[in-house]
């Protein structure tokens, strides 16, 4: 277990790196010339990063998570409500755990 000084230094280090990552994207974009291509890139990027988070999570889990996400996506497309989509996904996952462990 690290000593007090090392522990607080580590916390400060991780906080600094995390804050820098939050500020860096918008700052870097102030250095890039605006164009239609940049706009299309950002547009594609914004939806792609969410799709990538879903892909990465599903690759590390199983059918339970995949079924929950599929149901949530379906409910979102049909009902247009994120809260209903989440409720459906959570209910399916809870039911799956109760049924299959």
């Amino acid at each position, binding site marked *: 277990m690290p*000593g007090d000084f090392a*522990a607080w230094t580590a916390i400060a280090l991780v906080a600094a790196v995390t804050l820098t990552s939050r500020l860096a994207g918008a700052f870097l974009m102030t250095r890039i010339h605006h164009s239609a291509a940049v706009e299309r890139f950002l547009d594609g990027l914004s939806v792609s990063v969410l799709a990538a988070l879903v892909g990465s999570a599903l690759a590390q889990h199983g059918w339970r998570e995949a079924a929950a996400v599929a149901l949530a996506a379906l409910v979102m497309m049909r009902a247009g409500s994120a809260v209903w989509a989440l409720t459906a996904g959570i209910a399916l996952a809870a*039911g799956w755990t109760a049924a299959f462990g």
Partner: protein
Amino acid sequence: MDTQPPPGRPIILTFAGVLRGGRRLLPVATFVLPFGTAFGVAAAEKGMEVAQILAMSAVVFSGAAQFATLDFWTTPLAFGSLALVALAVNARHIILGAALSPWVNALPPPKRVMALTMLSDANFADSHVAFKSGERDVGYLLGGGLVMWVNWNVGTAIGAFAGSLIGDPAAFGLDVVMVCFFGAIVAAQLKRRTAILPVAVAFAISFGTVDHLPTGWNVILAALAGGLVSVVRRAR
């Protein structure tokens, strides 16, 4: 030169926007409580002091970075490796910030910093859709982030003080909240035909490379590929 804000009313950051964003994301943010609790429990088990656990959630506010830090919580601490891992798991924030830049960069620098300090996956997902639909108040992003931050920290405190009394979030299906939320947001965007190919490419790459790239880098690679596909496809 800044990326230009979309034409229309000026971009602002107001308290009313903060409240609107906070209210909108509250149902999702509530589900963050058990994950904050899980971090509090795991950190306490690693031997972190309560003050350190609470401070870490308050100033870092990144589940991925905080859980990764616990893997390095040994003596001596490997500060270089810790910084690199924190950068890797947080690098997607750079992409999120870049995607929000047309709105955020229209604000004066102090307000930019204020809004981006609370940037997370969830309030990005919610705000980006709202901004594209005509929301002009970046307070919406900040408000969503603040309710996430509060829930993350309350959850952490519960875990740090009373973690052993809490059950397993998976039994209640709570472990799938975030991935379901992202899946729902992506599904809503698929109504735009131009989003289908970037989504398919990003999903396939992140899914297929998760075992071959360091933590987090598969997401970055996939997101960049999706962005490039969007440029190439519509340029033709």
